[in-house]
Every structure is written in C-alpha cells, then in structure tokens.
C-alpha cells in the first residue's frame, strides 16, 4: 500500500524527534513513517497493523465497525506502529502537525519498548514478510481445496487460537526426558564398606518397584502432564490433512506473535505515553502549542468509571516509580518506617528514577509490573476501584476501593489475559481416542453457549468426541460434544 509522501517539514521533525529520543537514551530499530488517510488507517487497523493478511471475513467485519464509528465521530485512530525491524508506523493524514509530532514521539517510545523489553526478545521481526507469506500460502491452499472449505477451517482454528501456552516461548516445558531416568534409584552417597547399610537392598528394590509402577502409570497417561498448548497438541495428534496442518500452524504462530503485545499493553502504552509527554513538554512544543497538546493528551489519558485505560495507569505508574526511586522511597528501611508523615516526606535525593524505569521497561510485563509497583498510595491517588454487576438492580456499581481487592481484580484480569485456562488432560479418554480438556476453574464459570460452540469446532479438528471438565456453581460438570449433540453431565 502506498501512502502519501511526507512533507519536508514533517521529515525534518521526524529527524529532530529521533535525535531527542536518542538523547534521552531510548534505543530503537530504524523507524519508517508512512502517511495514510483514514480509510487506509482503518484498513491497517483491521488487519492488526499489517498491510497484508490472509483473506478472512473478520477483517471485513472489523473494518466495517471502524469505518462506521469513524463516520459517526466515535473514534479516531491516531497512530499505528508494528513490532518489526525496521519498525513501521503510520500517521493519519487528517491530523494536525502538532498531533503528528505527538504521535512521532509516542511511536519512538513504542519502538524502544519493542526492541528492549525481554518479552519481545523472541518475536519475529520480519513479521511483515511472514504475514504476507502466510497470506500467500493460505491463498494457494484455497485455490487447491476451495475457498469455502478453507474459510470454514480457518474459522475453526481461530476458535481455539486462545488455547495456547502464553509462556511457552520462554520456558522449556517438556524437558529433555533425562530427568526420569536419573530418578530410577536414588542412592545416598556412601563409602563402599558402608554402602549396604546406608543403601540397604530392600530400599533399592522398593525404589525400583515404585519407579516401574510410575512408568506404567505414565505410559497410560497421555499427555504426561496437562498441556496448555491445546493447538500444539492438536497439531501433533489430530488426524489432519496436510493443508489443515499448514493452516493450523499459521494461525497458531500468528497468535503467538501477538502475545507479547497483549502481555505488556499497560507497560507499552504507558512507556510510549511517558515519553511523548516528556518530549512534547520539554523539547518539542512551542509555547502556543501547549494547550492543544494538553487537550489531545488528556483525551488519550481519560479514564471512565467502567473501563480501564492502560495508557493512564501505565504512565502514572512509571511516574510514580520514577518519583519513588528519585526520593529513595523503597527498600527495607522505607517499608519498615511506621510514621506516615515521615514516609510522605521521605526524600533521600538518590535521583535513581530514570535509571529504574529503564530497567523496569526491560524486564517486566503487565502482571509483574502491577504486582511489584502498585502501592496503596497509588491506588488512592488514582481513585481506583473495582466494580461489579448487581443482578437485582440490573446495574453496574462500585464494589470496593480496598487496595488488595483492586490489585487482585487487576491481576486476575491480566492473568491469562482474563481468559479461562484450558488444558489437555487426556488425549485418549476412556481409551477411545476421545479428547478430554480441563478447565482450571478459578472462581469464574465458562459461558455455556460459547463453550458448546467451541467444542463443536474442536470436534471438527479432533474428529472424535471432545469433552471438557469444568465447574458451574460449585459443581463439577463435563460437557461433551460427540459430533451430533451436546451433553452436560455432572461428575
């Protein structure tokens, strides 16, 4: 897609802002800006930032939604930047020059984050090409096997694309397989002549027996441990045709690509906002521009009572951390101080704030970020609260302003992206090749109609009945779809 050329003035500004950003210590991939109109912007946003994706109706649906709400003036996408090397960022042509500058500064914040945050380290920086290749692959498959068939199968794959193991890129889950062998007999260290007293024959026999038994048990278990990457399990064990495997692989890898973005939404937006705000106010804005800047900025930071604005929470937390580390409000001595007054006026003039937030942006993700840096004082200052639905009044209302409750609610919402944790429990359920999934219930029930529809899709991949063990209102339930009908059984 070809955007409009950037004006000479804007190009000068890009160079200037790049220098300013680098001067603050931001470290980014080369960044390419393109000017697009709102239609192109909506289209790019529908494709999740990438100009070429495989054919699918849901992009069209998103595009229709975006176009409509743009036409009604409900929203406007200011900027779009994707995690690639070089970074691509899109500017909206109808924006004012001041808005452009703000967006450019914001984008450099994102680019620095993409490059330096540990959770992005493994991502495919050539995703632009990869996505286009995936689109071409699926198009080829569609030509051979028919568009409708392929579309239907893509729908099925998307229906399970949240059943992946978000942390697997960072952990070797399956191990090397050597541990088990080592465990056969554990002898205590002993000198030769003491050996038969310290490691008596009976004990060794007992251990061998136990090991054998465990081996037997493991053999009958498939998978050995519940597996969270249901998609991978399907890829490895479901009776799929080759083209279906290709599609499932593509959908799975694209789902993994977006994981770090979703893991660091608050941190990433907060970081970019922190930097656009810093650069705009310290370096970029002329005096007469500051009001307009403040207007746009506060619009982005606005938080409504019924939703959670990652920009706002992110930027405020970074600022809070910066201030605390500047003043030395951390560590044992500070924590143990019991005088509120002293705590409030605590200032050791350490000036470690900047350094600290750079470190934070490198190693944390949203969950660890909030877990570590959310403080009762912060919650109170920011007027955070939890809300819930009241059935009797048919309305949403404020539930609590208690720090721990707010924190728990936030973390709960972020853990697993607020989605139910589902595992493969048994790939050979009842020795009939049926699939048993397990919903690790954490107090929230599954939505039954969605669950049922998802099971139907799973059967299309697994080709045998699929079950899921879940809970509803404190009772363990097993939902089953056998290819024809849906059944619910109490355990």
């Amino acid at each position: 897609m070809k955007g409009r050329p950037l004006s000479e003035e804007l190009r000068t500004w890009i160079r200037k802002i790049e220098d300013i950003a680098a001067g603050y210590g931001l470290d980014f991939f080369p960044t390419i800006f393109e000017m697009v109109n709102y239609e192109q912007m909506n289209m790019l946003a529908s494709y999740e930032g990438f100009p070429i994706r495989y054919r699918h109706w849901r992009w069209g649906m998103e595009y229709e939604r975006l176009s409509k709400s743009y036409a009604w003036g409900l929203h406007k996408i200011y900027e779009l930047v994707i995690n690639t090397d070089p970074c691509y960022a899109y500017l909206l042509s109808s924006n004012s020059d001041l808005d452009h500058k703000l967006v450019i500064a914001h984008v450099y914040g994102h680019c620095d984050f993409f490059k330096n945050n540990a959770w992005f380290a493994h991502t495919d920086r050539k995703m632009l090409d990869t996505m286009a290749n995936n689109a071409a692959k699926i198009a080829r498959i569609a030509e051979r096997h028919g568009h409708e068939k392929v579309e239907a199968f893509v729908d099925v794959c998307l229906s399970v694309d949240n059943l992946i193991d978000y942390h697997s890129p960072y952990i070797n889950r399956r191990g090397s397989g050597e541990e088990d062998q080592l465990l056969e007999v554990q002898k205590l260290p002993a000198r030769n002549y003491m050996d038969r007293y310290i490691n008596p024959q009976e004990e060794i026999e007992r251990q061998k027996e136990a090991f054998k038994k465990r081996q037997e048990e493991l053999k009958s278990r498939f998978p050995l441990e519940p597996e969270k990457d249901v998609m991978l399990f399907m890829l490895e064990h479901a009776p799929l045709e080759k083209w279906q495997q290709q599609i499932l692989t593509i959908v799975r890898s694209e789902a993994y690509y977006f994981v770090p973005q979703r893991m660091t939404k608050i941190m990433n937006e907060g970081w970019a906002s922190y930097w656009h705000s810093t650069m705009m106010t310290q370096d970029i804005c002329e005096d007469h521009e500051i009001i307009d800047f403040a207007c746009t900025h506060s619009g982005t930071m606005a938080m409504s009572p019924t939703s959670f604005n990652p920009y706002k929470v992110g930027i405020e937390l970074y600022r809070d951390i910066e201030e605390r580390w500047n003043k030395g409000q951390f560590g044992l001595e500070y924590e143990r101080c019991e005088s509120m007054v002293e705590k409030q006026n605590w200032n050791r003039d350490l000036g470690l704030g900047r350094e600290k937030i750079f470190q934070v942006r490198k190693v944390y993700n949203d969950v660890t970020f909030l877990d570590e840096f959310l403080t009762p004082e912060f919650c109170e200052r920011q007027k955070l609260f939890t809300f819930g639905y009241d059935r009797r009044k048919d309305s949403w209302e404020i539930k609590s302003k208690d720090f721990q409750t707010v924190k728990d609610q936030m973390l709960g919402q972020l853990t697993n992206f607020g989605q139910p944790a589902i595992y493969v429990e048994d790939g050979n359920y009842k020795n009939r090749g049926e699939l048993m999934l397990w919903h690790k219930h954490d107090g929230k029930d599954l939505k039954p109609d969605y669950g049922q529809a998802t099971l139907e899709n799973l059967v299309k991949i697994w080709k045998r009945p699929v079950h899921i063990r879940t809970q509803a209102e404190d009772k363990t339930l097993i939902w089953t779809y056998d290819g024809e009908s849906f059944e619910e059984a109490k355990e």
Partner: protein
Amino acid sequence: MQRIDTDQRRFRDIVRGRIRENLRRYISKGELIGRQGNDRVSIPVPQIEIPRFKYGQRENGGVGQGNGEPGDQIGQGEQEGSGQGQAGENPGEHVLEVDVSLEELAQILGDELELPNIIPKGQEKFESTKLKFSGIRPTGPDTLRHHRRTFRHALKRQLASGQYDPKNPVIIPIRDDYRYRSFKEEVKPHHNAVIIYMMDVSGSMGDEQKEIVRIESFWIDTWLRSQYKGIESRYIIHDASAREVDRDTFFRTKESGGTMISSAYETCSKIMQTDYPSGEWNIYPFHFSDGDNWSADDTSQCIKILKDEILPKSNVFCYGQVESPYGSGQFVKDLRIHFRESEDVITSEVKGKDDIVRSIKDFLGKGK
C-alpha cells in the same frame, strides 16, 4: 480496489445469510420497523463471532477510576464498558447493527418465502431516465479520462507507425489517443403501482391487532416496492364511516363505535376512479379488519362494490382478517362464499404474530 474490500464483501454475504436465517423471527417480532431510514433498514444481527472458551460477561466486573463510593451506580445493565476505543478489558455482548437496503431486504424476503415475481399488467407508460457511464469517446474532461483505453490506442498507433520498440517499451499517448468515459441516458419504461391500505379501526380492533397490521403492511410494502418503481401508498381508516389519512395516522388512530366496511370500499373505489385510471396502474387494495361488520346488508353492499368497481380495476384484492376477542369473524366467510371461484380475491386469516409470515405468503405468493 483495496484488499479489505474482498473481506468486507465476504462479511456482508455472511450477514445476509444470517438475516435470511432469522427472517421469520424478524417478521413475527416486528423488530425492524422503526429502524427504517429512507431506503435502508438497520438490522440487529446476533453474534457473528468466532466462538471461544470464555467467561460469562456478568462474572467479570473490572477496575475503573473516578470519584464515588462503594455502592454507587456507574452504569446501566446491558451497558458495555468502553472508552478510548481501547475497551476489550471489559467484554460485552456484541449485537451487530447492519445496514441493509430495502431492496436487498425484499430480495431476501422473496428468496426465503419463495415469492414469485409479479407480472405487471397494463402498458409501460411511465418512463424514468438514468445516467450510465457506459460509453467511450475521444473528447471529455480529464477527470473522466480512461487510462487503459488511452494507452491501448497509443500502443496501437505506435505499433502501426513502427515507433514501438519492444526493447524499450515506452508508450507516449498524444492528443488523438486520449479516450474518455462518457455517459448515456438510458430511458427505462416501467409500470406504476399503488397500494391502498384499508384498516378497520373500530372499537374491537385492539393494539395487538393493529401491531399485526403494521408489521404485515411493512413487509408487503417492502416487497411491492422492490417490484415496482415509484409505487404509491394510500391509507384509509374506517369504523362506521371512512376517511383517507396519512401513514402515521393510519397506524395510530383508535376510534370506537360500529363498523361499516362498505364505507371504506366506497372511499377506495372513489380514489381509484379519480387518481388511478385503470389500465395504466397496477392497483393493490389491502383490507384488514377483525371480520365484524355492522349488518348483512352492509356486507352485500361491500360485495357489490368489490364486484362492480374494485375488482375489475385492481390486480388483486387482499383481505386480511386479524383475530380479535370481540369480532365475530364473519366477514371472511362471506367473502369466501361469494368469491370462491375468483382468483382476484385473496383472503387470509391471522391468528397471531406467528401467522404473519404465512399470511404474507398467502397474499404475495400468487405473483399478481
């Protein structure tokens, strides 16, 4: 064409499929009425969504920010949290509103109920003109220049005159090569048609009965509009006497008192005589009542008017009898006795909203 257009078209196809699946429900619930713009309807389509394992919405709650104390209300029931376009933290039920043109809706209705196209009677007297960009000419404004044709001509010329070098394929159009799109006026003759709605608004017709009439006439209107260009609608209400009203009044008026159906038929016949000389117009009188008439005398008067004046000039006369707890429901029986042989009278009884679909099919299924 943009890449997204293909995806958007595919999405719209799916939406149309959904509307078709749910059409019967839309019809009997009357959901679409009142959502109508000039020539478009906005239709709520449930769940075009990829199903995934997820939590029920109500389970969720969330974290918000602002002034207030525990117990304060911050939003109404069905509301979905949103803000800054970054929502998503607080998933809500998605009901998609899709705009569909009335023409498209009529097509879906026709497909679903297997309605035959209407064969118009009379001559095609009325003409409408339409501009169509279908031609090419050598002169015109630059904005309408047809680049491909222009270059094709330039290539032809260069080939013919030996100026074209395949090794250095440069094509330079000159003035004579330029081609422009041009429009032609297309004159399309078409038939004209009028629907004359009559409704009994006497005391025995309750709100529910009128709702049924309203829904049915919406769909009849939609269908006939797709069949004729420039269709007109006229509205007559009657109790013991009849008068012509506008659309709004037609659906809202509640009178009390007796019922003289003949009064409506007389008014109808008068309108037909003065405004719609037969032969040129396709006329569709629709009459809805609960079947309660004042007297047998009046009924025979009605039948006389129908036979002598209305039927000869109309395509078909439709009578819909809505069941009401007060009416005797006699009128439909009388009509059936007198017009058993006739194909020009269609009667249909509607017991409740679920009958609307069948009734529409009764009326429109004959292709008249």
